[in-house]
């Protein structure tokens, strides 16, 4: 018997209905008579099945638009599926708190907002605020409006808020790539903590260094389907070979 499953994705399909806005040539205008609104269904995920295990860090790679972000959102169970199932032993946390934060307000006030969005009480946030600020390494900038932060500083704050309570299952979407060496070390530490507590981490990234540094197993997503699952070395090599100029 292998390690216990923490999240089980079965035959997940996610479609988006989007409005296309082509620039019609004269010919099309004459042919169609008038401009017509065109809706197209984007099949972002087309039957993905995946098991995530205890004490595992899973890498998620693939070209832009391959469906990485969609898969991570779907794993939280919050993105409506066209079909398929998502089972889990608890709800995974996606590092998505950034969308709740207000750029005009200071980092400190955003810790309150982000914490409330994650389900903390005000008292819990106050008692953890120092810890969050220390982990983010932003003590000098914490009372400045967040819009004055660099992208790396914002990523630090997001990560610090989102992992203020160490989650059982953490989904990371490109959050670490903009950080400096110090931040990478801190985030690697958090990932190890989750793993040693029998949790799971999924790391969606384009930085192959990170995959090799953290991951036990890698999934290659291509145009909404799993193209390969396996050892990081092999999958990364196959992925890189497919993107190499011919």
């Amino acid at each position: 018997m292998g390690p216990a499953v923490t999240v089980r994705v079965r035959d997940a399909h996610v479609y988006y209905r989007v409005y296309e806005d082509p620039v019609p040539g004269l010919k099309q205008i004459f042919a169609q008579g008038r401009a017509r609104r065109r809706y197209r269904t984007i099949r972002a995920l087309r039957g993905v099945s995946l098991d995530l295990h205890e004490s595992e860090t899973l890498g998620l790679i693939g070209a832009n638009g391959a469906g990485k972000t969609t898969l991570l959102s779907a794993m939280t169970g919050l993105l409506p599926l066209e079909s398929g199932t998502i089972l889990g032993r608890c709800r995974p946390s996606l590092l998505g708190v950034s969308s709740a934060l207000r750029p005009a307000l200071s980092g400190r006030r955003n810790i309150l907002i982000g914490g409330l969005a994650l389900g903390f009480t005000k008292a819990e946030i106050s008692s953890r605020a120092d810890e969050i600020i220390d982990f983010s390494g932003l003590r000098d900038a914490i009372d400045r409006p967040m819009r004055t932060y660099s992208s790396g500083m914002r990523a630090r704050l997001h990560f610090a808020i989102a992992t203020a309570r160490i989650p059982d299952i953490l989904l990371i979407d490109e959050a670490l790539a903009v950080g400096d060496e110090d931040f990478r070390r801190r985030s690697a530490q958090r990932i190890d903590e989750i793993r040693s507590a029998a949790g799971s981490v999924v790391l969606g990234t384009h930085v192959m260094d990170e995959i090799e540094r953290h991951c036990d197993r890698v999934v290659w997503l291509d145009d909404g389907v799993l193209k390969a699952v396996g050892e990081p070395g092999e999958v990364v090599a196959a992925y890189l070979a497919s993107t190499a100029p011919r």
Partner: protein
Amino acid sequence: MSDRDQQLHDLTRPPSSASYLQEAWNRREFAILVPAQDLRAQNMGTVLGQLWHIANPALLVGVYFLIFGVVIDTSRGVENFLGFLIVGVVLFHLTQRVVQDAAVCISRNLGLIRSVQFPRILLPAATLNGQTAAFVPALVLAMVAVVATGERPSMRWLALPAVLAAQFLFNFGAALLVARIGASLSDLQQLLPHLFRLLFYASGVIFSVEAFVTSPAWRRAFALNPIYDVITCARWCLVGELADGWVVAGLLAWCIALPVIGFVVFHRSEQRLGA
């Protein structure tokens, strides 16, 4: 399947209604403190800063004071027209702000909805709380204006909190309904200003319906309009206008029915909100 795998549960299934309301209540701080932060952020870059929360309603009341109190005299059979007008404008404004904000509260927070699990009812509730808090200075100024135009506090003022509570409930129901519709139909945002322009006249904000509509049947028809009911009851409290039983019954019916309808509509398809 091993024993341990059987602990897995379906993450896409919605929570039950009872635990939903319990959870929403447990997380009420979100719906109170986040809009408070937003109100602070609103005027951050301005010279007056947080003073705008008082200056803005003061200007609203002041402009009506200037035009209808000084420039033109249009009492039209209303004893204290200025007080009558300001009470109407301020209360109408509150419902309008709540509803227009609620129409975009889902689309504005889509990123949050897609990444964090929380009872989505907190978003329209936060909208309601924020706008209601922003309304308090306007209400105080309206009461000052009412006294300044010659009214004296009376026992009727004691009924005002009940009228405002009814409006709060009605606004909550309207916010839930509009938030749900606005989430799937963004056209609503364009329609609402026109709907409110229409309601502005249908609610007798700047004229007395009593003075214009003589047929009792038509007056009863006005009682179907919840905003007219709120304004008329508040005027009964503050400036001694008439409010008949139809208006009170209309207000009661709306403030009970709409939150229930709003909740059912909002909660029913909540799981699809992230789409």
